């Protein structure tokens, strides 16, 4: 379990007697518990803090979600990887300087949805649809998939729910080493455990409350030894002097600890952010120089490194992975078709991939 501080628990009044609510509250002894009519009441309290975003990460709100599944919105003008999201929890107890949730969720509490029967129905309906290609689905879009797993045991519930689902891969994406629950159960073939990785110096400066690089890879190793397949996300890749050597070391470390055959996919994405993120994040991360780098305002309104830099980063990273014969498992996140074409598609042994991006999943 990572160092996560929960100061207060808010509960949607009508869920006071819910079994999962009781379980979660019992696991957080000594915290004040407040019953509320709506999330607005919780947000109203959080926003009084001089750091509402930070405060939101220390407050839990137990509630229901109306719907859980949605296709990843990606961003206009980018090549979508066809991912699906399960919005089970919203907001993340980890604190990364580049995290979009700071601008997107603002001062929302750690919102945990406890209406699992509704989720179950929705997932079953979703899984009953016939599909030609395999899809990937995960909980890591609006939170870290495993940071609060010690509290919610979401992983156990979801693995059971997706057990045997055809043409569907369930991904838990994390920056923690919290795999204890998943190691207690039999690994399912359609479950992938994935880690977001960065060099240790980036982790130390920009990813507060997360596990160290080594701890993440140790957890990945345990997961592989237990029988899971794993994924790695280099997203966001941060550019700085010496970035290439540092990232190469991370990749080297991966292959020292995890066999290449166990790696299901690797994603690459360079730092990008909407215009309102820096003002939300700068004062919270005074030591970070992330937003002081060179950016251009790109086609979707987001700031990105200029293309000559981005493309160079991708090229270098792909070269490193190709050295380990893993080039075919790479995809880019939120990149334009043009960048995709000029980097990845050309790179993979000259093969033009028409079944973007997971031709091996067909």
């Amino acid at each position, binding site marked *: 379990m990572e160092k996560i501080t929960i100061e207060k628990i808010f509960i949607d009044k009508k869920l006071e007697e819910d079994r999962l609510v009781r379980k979660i509250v019992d696991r957080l002894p000594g915290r004040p518990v407040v019953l509320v009519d709506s999330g607005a009441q919780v947000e109203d309290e959080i926003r009084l803090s001089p750091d509402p975003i930070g405060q939101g990460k220390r407050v839990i709100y137990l509630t229901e979600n109306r719907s859980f599944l949605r296709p990843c919105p990606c961003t206009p003008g980018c090549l979508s990887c066809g991912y699906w999201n399960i919005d089970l929890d919203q907001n993340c107890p980890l604190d990364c300087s580049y995290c979009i949730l700071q601008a997107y969720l603002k001062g929302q509490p750690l919102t945990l949805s406890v209406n699992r029967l509704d989720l179950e129905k929705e997932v079953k309906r979703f899984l009953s649809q016939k599909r030609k290609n395999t899809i990937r689905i995960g909980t890591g879009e609006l939170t870290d998939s495993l940071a609060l797993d010690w509290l919610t045991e979401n992983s156990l519930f979801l693995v059971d729910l997706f057990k045997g689902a055809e043409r569907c891969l369930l991904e838990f994406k994390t920056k923690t080493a919290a795999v204890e629950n998943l190691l207690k159960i039999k690994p399912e073939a359609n479950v992938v455990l994935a880690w977001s990785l960065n060099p240790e110096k980036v982790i130390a400066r920009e990813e507060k409350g997360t596990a160290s690089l080594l701890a993440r890879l140790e957890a990945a190793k345990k997961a592989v030894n237990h029988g899971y397949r794993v994924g790695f996300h280099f997203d966001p890749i941060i550019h700085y002097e010496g970035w290439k050597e540092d990232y190469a070391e991370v990749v080297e470390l991966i292959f020292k600890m995890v066999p290449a055959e166990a790696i299901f996919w690797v994603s690459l994405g360079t730092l990008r952010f909407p215009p309102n993120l820096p003002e939300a994040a700068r004062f919270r991360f005074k030591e970070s120089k992330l937003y*002081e780098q060179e950016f251009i*305002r790109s086609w979707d309104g987001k700031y990105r490194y*200029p*293309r000559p830099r981005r493309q160079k980063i991708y090229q270098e990273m792909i070269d490193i992975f190709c050295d380990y014969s893993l080039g075919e498992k790479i995809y880019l996140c939120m990149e334009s078709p043009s960048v995709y074409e000029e980097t990845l598609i050309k790179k993979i042994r000259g093969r033009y991939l028409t079944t973007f991006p997971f031709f091996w999943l067909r």
Partner: protein
Amino acid sequence: MKFKKVDLSEINLQEQTFRYTLKPVDERLLFSVQQAGIVEPVVVKKEGKDYIPVTGFRRLEAAGKLGLSQVPVIELEEKTSRLEAFLTAFFDNFGWRVFSLAEKSLAVKKFLEFGMEKAEIIRKVLVWLELPPNGRTLEILSQLAEEESLLPIIHEKNWKLSTAERLLEFNQEERSQLVNLVSGLSLNRQAEIIEGFCILKKRWGKALAEILKETEFQEILAQKNLDKVQAGEKLAEKLREKTSSLVTRLLKQIDREIMELNLSPPLTVDYDRTLEDRHLTLKLKLSSVEELKNIIRELSSQERESHWQRIFALLRTLEE
């Protein structure tokens, strides 16, 4: 509340307890008071033997300047608290004009001084002021209100909260230096220069004074023939070069190659200056087949080929 006429001498014009507005008396107001006197009574409160103004500071100042002996007032009841009186002052202006960020910060300071709870300010006042209603905004406004020397420029150009927040990242001495550099420039230029220096300060880990000692900045600041606006433009341009060195360098090289193509006026060459799109756009204005043939000849002439090659290479370049 009582309406009456009182001698101007009975009102303590030095007393600014309830003042949070920064609009000065202008010719228009003076003319209006001169022509018709004070039409709308000012609100006052009796404290001790004096009346102190709650609203109408500009009208009272105009009356003083014009030598009016009596002014119409509305006197607040004695039991009116200072907070209640300030709410009157606040809403007296609220309905007819938008406050500047500087005035908003002063208003918030007054609400705090007069005992309004922080939570109430966040929930109510910040919403009235159309600012993000959270503790962080309150913190920035409180900091700003203490920076008396900054308030005039923030008021004059109607700064955004984000620009003021960036300025607060500098220490007091640096803030004065920056304000001095950007005063007299347009709001956008001011924001651009502050942002630029903020980026360099953090990126280089240097104090503003040290950054300004860089030869390129010194050269601009030393040019006596430049007026304030021209110097501001040059400063902004230099900052763009420094903060976006990769793109700026490539743009300069591409522009030079395009210039060296030496194409005739009906033909223009354009490209995406963010360098995301790697295509060139050629625009032609033609009125005959003959002209078209000439242009094609011109475009494909031997001596231009190396420039075209270099332009395309630059558009597709990767960082070294």
